[in-house]
């Protein structure tokens, strides 16, 4: 296969390298190098105040295995994802299917549902911190009191705090998924649906047997993107609960932040970051495998 490049081809190759140079250079410096560094740090006893106290082998990993807080944050991260992902998917899919038509109401819904998406996460978290105030002063509790329910002290009671951050997060990001699903619903093959209707399929059957399987590839894709997004939650947690109460909303990313910048254990924080890296890696591999299957369906 090896053959000499013509002058023209050489020129094109040179241009190609030149074109990708900025991106690749930045990628190496700002992605690859830090990634290698995070692995190195994870084998060191590094402290923000005390500096690098040298290579300590697997010590950080041994600490990790015995660290109850780490397991707790891992569990919290899973709980958070299990709260956010199904709620987000079910709501966005239901809305996309229900609002499929192009009426005025749908247009309004599309607009308002998208407002939180373009609002910064910090602004949204700040507002929800107020909305979830405990006692009668909190607007949400006030509304609940109108229908005779005494609301909890949302952000300061174990369990409710997680519920509150999940709700605010779902509302923040729902808009994107609704839009994606609306696109997918619009692209459903009309002839197949029509054939189903002619065969006398009822609405539930139409949904479960025809629409849902056809939408499955998009659903799976959106699901993984949402899972990865939920692994990365930071602003909501920091501003609304600071990881409390009782550490019940301390998620993996926030634990990294805590270890690195509150207790200054840079080495140990890197070890947790390595774990996060592998979790996201696995999810991404799953995503790519699904994408390949999805495009197989499309053919």
């Amino acid at each position, binding site marked *: 296969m090896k053959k000499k490049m013509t002058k023209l081809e050489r020129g094109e190759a040179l241009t190609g390298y030149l074109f990708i140079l900025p991106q690749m250079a930045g990628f190496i410096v700002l992605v690859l190098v830090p990634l290698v560094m995070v692995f190195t740090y994870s084998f060191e006893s590094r402290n923000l105040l005390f500096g690098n106290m040298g290579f300590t082998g697997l010590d950080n990993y041994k600490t990790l295995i015995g660290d109850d807080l780490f397991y707790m944050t891992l569990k919290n991260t899973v709980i958070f994802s299990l709260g956010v992902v199904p709620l987000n998917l079910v709501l966005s899919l239901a809305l996309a299917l229900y609002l499929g038509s192009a009426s005025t109401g749908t247009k309004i819904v599309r607009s308002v549902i998208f407002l939180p998406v373009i609002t910064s996460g910090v602004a949204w978290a700040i507002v929800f911190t107020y909305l979830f105030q405990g006692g009668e002063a909190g607007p949400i509790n006030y509304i609940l009191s109108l229908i005779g329910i005494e609301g909890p002290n*949302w952000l300061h009671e174990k369990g409710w705090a997680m519920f509150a951050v999940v709700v605010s997060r779902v509302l923040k990001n729902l808009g994107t998924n609704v839009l994606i699903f609306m696109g997918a619903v619009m692209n459903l093959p009309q002839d197949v649906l029509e054939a189903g209707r002619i065969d006398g399929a009822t609405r539930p059957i139409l949904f479960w047997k025809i629409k849902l399987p056809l939408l499955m590839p998009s659903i799976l894709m959106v699901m993984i993107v949402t899972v990865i997004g939920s692994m990365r939650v930071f602003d909501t947690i920091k501003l609304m609960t600071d990881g409390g109460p009782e550490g019940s909303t301390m998620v993996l990313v926030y634990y990294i932040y805590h270890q690195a910048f*509150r207790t*200054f254990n840079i080495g140990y924080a890197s070890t947790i970051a390595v774990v996060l890296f592998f979790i996201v890696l696995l999810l991404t591999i799953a995503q790519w495998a699904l994408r390949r299957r999805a495009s197989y369906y499309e053919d």
Partner: protein
Amino acid sequence: MRSSLKMRVLCALLALLMLSVPVMAGGSQESGSTSSGPVRIKIATWTSNPDQIALLQSFVDEFAAKEGIEVAAEFESIEFGEYNTKLSLELQGSQAPDVFWVLETSAPAFIESGLLAPLDAELAEYNPEDLSAKAMELWQKDGVTYAVPFSTSPFFMIYNADLFAAAGIDTPDKLVAEGKWDWNAFRAASKAIKDATGVWGYQTVDGGGYDVRILHNLCPIIRSYGGDAWTNDGQILINTPESVEAVQLFHDMVYVDGSVVPPGDQSDFFSGAAAMTAAQVSRVSKLTDVDFAWGVAPMPAGPMGDVPITGQAGIGAFSKGKNVDVAKKLVAYMTNEECVARMAGIWPPARYSVLESPDFLTSQPLLTADQMSMAVAGSIETGRVLPSHVMYPQIEVESRIVWDRLWNPNADVQAVLDGVAEVYAKYIK
């Protein structure tokens, strides 16, 4: 031809983008470097009060005049809750402050880490007799002084006299005069006010008593009951019967009486939404604009009598700063007798000459000499600082998760404090 021109434009653009990185970084660095001209000193504090900053600025100006140099001071106010994080990050970088305040709880970690410059040479002219040895203890290691406490400030109670009148009960200073001002009387007053007026009886110090200031909130009660968090010689006392009894009292106030501003509620004493709060002299300035009558009283006594708690803050120089020599001299200047006397109305000093001078009692314009002597002056020498430790950041983060269990109505105080003791035991030996 055209396309090669575009190519060149493109290359130039990219080069610009690449260049902009070091230039922008360097550009801002420039301002920090020294050549000639004024010595730049960056001072990190957690106050953002303009009057307090102005006072500190005047010290810098006088210092510069005395030394015959030009000093351009830049003050940086970091939010209290983020202070250690931000400060530690800055100390690693090119924008590090030259002079900074140190929280009492993180004093051992900062001293141990070598980030604080030794100050003995600069402090040599101080009369060692004048400084309270007890107050200096925390800021010294192996006989070397690394920071000077500019504030040794006891906690006391501020109360809303209007609310006490509305509830028809005796004010704390009246109870003090009768020798009845103890934690039970405090609890009763708090409940009486909540029951009579519907306004909260007590707000914890800066509203942070359930999280960031948990030890500031609980230690005064715990110590006056004969307990403690831990001691400097490594004993953990947080789950002793005395400590448990004290914490139970506070817990009952929150959940049985319902008279304390609960966790997550933002009701603030200074806006009239609570009848009492624990505070220090530095908070008194917040009373300037309030629309209620107020008074002060010492912290209530417990079975062990009156055990005042002082909060300390130190000031030190960054050991790796560019202008460390000037910074060290500045720290010494800012904590000399004259400057300390002028700060005394905000941050009470640990200098006998200032404390014993008649001026001290009138140094805070909002407090009368009587109030000052009752609530502040008497407690400075007898008061004790909170426990501290080299691993304090870890202890704080980890124990916080256990402490949180306390804040629900059915909490088993003994069990929670046993859990806290377990966390302490991991680090305190």
